[in-house]
């Protein structure tokens, strides 16, 4: 995975919003990259800046947004510096997006076939008849039953799950290199959620697209993502592979998120939650933005923002707890369980490798 090229790099991105009340610092120095074919999950509470980040990748920031620094490189080209024209050529062709609520994201007065075919006609100049034929293929691919008869139906004639399939069909019709899925299952029933996630996984293999998966639900992340970035108050606080984040989290915020997620092993009646509310980004607090809600906070957290500390080649976390001088703290019980499991998994992996080696040597004459 490491060897693959980055198709998208976000470097030190800073975005402010000018509002009546003042300047909201929505994105405060965010960096990450996306590799070909991988799925990156961005996890965080609402208002943490997940959606703003993806908007900036699409060049769809609101009018009152100001890019205060950084860049977004798509194949080395800065999206933030592109002309309107270049952005239009990018959207829906190279980078496509699925929105949160399928009930409102389809044009209620346009037949769905036409809506699916539209990106083809806009970007590839495909004639209508041919575009509709391709739209029909795509409808079948995303699992819309009886597609031939339904291609001329209107959105309100479909259920929520079906509508989200249509939205996915619209996004994928041009085989985009990047698919941004902004909480694509939040508005759906749990059973439909699973279907949509399965569909996305299946299509990712067929279409070979990279996915940025935005969610507040860590449960969804486990089965979908290769890597995870945890965002809090406009910053990434921890990132790593799925296993690293799930079984060896280092940031107290990630601990909180994981502990508040029920698992099969959860016992007791109470599900812990993270106390308090995210900070006001009109006037972000000095030091670590999470300090006020962090029961592991150190004195320095209120004075100085923590830098990223390296945990492994792929795993970094921004918390002073990783500083060599920091006191040893005991994470919540659930996290310790997870870390134990992680250690066991690593051990098994090692064992397997060893075993493999042994076998290999045995085969030698």
């Amino acid at each position, binding site marked *: 995975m490491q060897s693959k090229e980055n198709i998208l790099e976000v470097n030190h991105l800073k975005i402010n919003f000018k509002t009546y009340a003042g300047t909201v610092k929505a994105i405060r120095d965010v960096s990450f990259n996306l590799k070909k074919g991988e799925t990156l999950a961005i996890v965080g509470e609402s208002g943490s800046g997940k959606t703003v980040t993806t908007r900036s990748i699409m060049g769809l920031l609101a009018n009152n947004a100001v890019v205060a620094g950084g860049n977004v490189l798509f194949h080395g080209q800065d999206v933030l510096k592109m002309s309107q024209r270049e952005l239009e*050529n990018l959207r829906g062709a190279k980078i496509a997006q699925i929105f949160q609520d399928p009930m*409102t994201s*389809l044009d209620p007065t346009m037949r769905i076939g036409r809506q699916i075919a539209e990106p083809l006609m806009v970007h590839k100049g495909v004639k209508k008849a041919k575009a509709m034929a391709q739209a029909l293929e795509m409808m079948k691919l995303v699992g819309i039953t009886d597609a031939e008869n339904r291609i001329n139906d209107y959105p309100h004639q479909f259920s929520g799950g079906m509508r989200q399939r249509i939205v996915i069909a619209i996004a994928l019709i041009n085989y985009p290199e990047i698919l941004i899925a902004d909480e694509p299952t939040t508005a759906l029933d749990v059973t439909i959620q699973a279907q949509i996630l399965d569909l996305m996984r299946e299509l990712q293999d067929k279409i070979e697209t990279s996915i940025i998966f935005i969610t507040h639900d860590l449960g969804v992340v486990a089965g979908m993502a290769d890597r995870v970035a945890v965002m809090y108050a406009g910053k990434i606080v921890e990132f790593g592979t799925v296993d690293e984040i799930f079984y060896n989290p280092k940031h107290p915020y990630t601990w909180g998120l994981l502990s508040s997620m029920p698992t099969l092993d959860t016992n007791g009646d109470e599900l812990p939650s993270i106390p308090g509310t995210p900070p006001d980004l009109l006037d972000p607090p000095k030091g670590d933005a999470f300090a006020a809600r962090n029961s592991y906070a150190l004195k320095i957290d209120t004075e100085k923002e923590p830098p990223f500390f390296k945990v492994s080649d792929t795993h970094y976390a921004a918390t002073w707890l990783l500083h060599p001088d920091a006191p040893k703290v005991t994470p919540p019980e659930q996290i310790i369980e997870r870390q134990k499991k992680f250690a066991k998994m690593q051990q098994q992996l090692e064992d397997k490798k060893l075993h493999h080696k042994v076998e290999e040597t045995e085969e030698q004459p």
Partner: protein
Amino acid sequence: MAKYLLKRIFYLLLTLFIVITVTFFLMKLLPGTPLQNQQKLSPSEQHLILKQYGLTKPIWQQYLTYVGGVLHGNFGTSFQFSDQPVSYLISSRIGPSLLLGTQAMILGVVPGILVGALGAIKKNTWVDTTTTIVSILGISIPSFVLAVLLQYFIGLKLHLLPIADWGGFAYTVLPTIALAASPFADTARFTRTEMVDVLNSDYIELARAKGLSKWGVIYHHALRNSLIPVVTIIGPLAVNIMTGSMVIENIFSIPGIGEQFVKSILTNDYPTIMAVTIVYSVMLMVVLLITDIVYGIIDPRIRISGKSN
């Protein structure tokens, strides 16, 4: 759809019946007879006239006669012009009113839509501010004030168009403008609000994410969705124009139904008042019915649900 239509027509007829009944009995509550304009008559002559008008019969009989008459297009005889049947009075005057009303509706709605849409697209720019000011003025300044202003400046000072009277297209221009101002402003405001809502909607965001250009988004997605609801305000606009026509026709001396209505009120000509009331109600009900049907045809959401019902 057919079932819905039948239901609507049933309600329309019911409403019409209620309107006829209520106006009839309200008028009966009022003092005043055809005699008020001809006082010096002997009692027997008076009785003869009352009998001519059918006013000597018991009220319920008068009512039945009236309803029966209305169904045949007979609204009785005018008190004011004792030799004229009301139906003739109205039919001879409805032409100018319909012409003015239609012209005002077109002149109000079409530019109103354009201006409203433009205001929404250019939201928070000087274009938007200008259209907002124009529509506030259009809503606030009463049509009769505007009418007199037009008369004074365009007719009297600049001699560009006739000040009043009736007789050809030139005579319709000023009254049409005066009548159209308020529907124009209403349409512009309504369209702007609808369009702003639509432009903020998720499906417009998705259309942008598809890579459509700004005007592509507006043309293919925003316009249709914000224009469909405009159909729903045609009814209220028609009321607006009917109301306005009463005073505008007076100011410009246009021989229309509105001018007749005012005259009839001032002379207590009850049969004519009742007839005009009924005619106005019928016109409004027909407009409401048509806009309902049109709305059902152009909005796919209603079209389908109508079918399945």
